[in-house]
């Protein structure tokens, strides 16, 4: 069965860029889902079988850290791996993201090779 990825970013441009980078990295997902903020991401996770989440941090409505915290409190979805893709990569912020369950972080700007290095082992 093919895998499904959820891309969470308030920028439509960045969601397209991440999708493109996944293809360029040779990572084939059967389905690519998108969400514009953390709350939308929770709604998508509630309705779909998702294998990995790529999430921005700075988003309106519900940001990436708030999303991680809410996800960690839901037994149905807390086990889904989340990799942060963000301009925010300060040690304190990444430590906070990992404390809520994120398993890695990719800094924007990124290359397809970096995507492959981080996601490849997960898949």
């Amino acid at each position, binding site marked *: 069965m093919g895998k499904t990825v959820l891309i969470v970013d*308030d*920028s*439509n*441009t*960045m969601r*397209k*860029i991440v999708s*493109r980078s996944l293809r360029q990295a040779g990572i084939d997902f059967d389905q690519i889902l998108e969400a514009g903020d953390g709350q939308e991401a929770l709604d998508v996770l509630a309705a779909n079988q998702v294998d990995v989440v790529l999430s921005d941090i*700075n*988003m*309106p409505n519900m940001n990436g850290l708030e999303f991680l915290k809410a996800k960690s409190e839901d037994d149905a979805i807390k086990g889904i791996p989340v990799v942060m893709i*963000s*301009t*925010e*990569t*300060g*040690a*304190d*912020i*990444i430590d906070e993201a990992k404390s809520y369950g994120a398993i890695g972080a990719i*800094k*924007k*700007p*990124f*290359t397809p090779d970096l995507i492959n290095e981080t996601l490849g082992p997960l898949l």
Partner: protein
Amino acid sequence: MKYAQDICDSTQEIFSSMIMLDVSPGEPFKRDTSKLEHSVSGIIGLAGTVKGMLAIHLPNEAALAVTTAFLGMDVEEIDEDVCDAIGELANMLGGSIKSIIDPTGSDVQLSIPSAIHGEEYAVDCLADSESVTVPFTFNGQTFMVELQINQS
């Protein structure tokens, strides 16, 4: 001028890795309050121990060319996609500069980026701030990256 080299390095890295465009920096300068014409600006604010903004200003033609390259599809008018793309560029530039000013990430916060465009508008941030603007060129087009900060 302080942070000019950081702006050069960050802009070139972002354009090269995300947009596959090679951009060349010009001489840094302090931009006055002249209005911008037929342009698009992506803006992101900084708050905390350092206050200010980072902005990228592109004439419409340059904004369309950058967005076309960014998205991999032809863009022919300044629309929501262009504003989103330019806002995301400001986001990445802001994040890059922030990581230099605040390596731990806990002392400076970034705003959600925004974008404005029009026939004539002005962008200004803080009184008593240090300011540096770096012009860039690519494929006969030009744009500017501007940083205004108050570190007191």
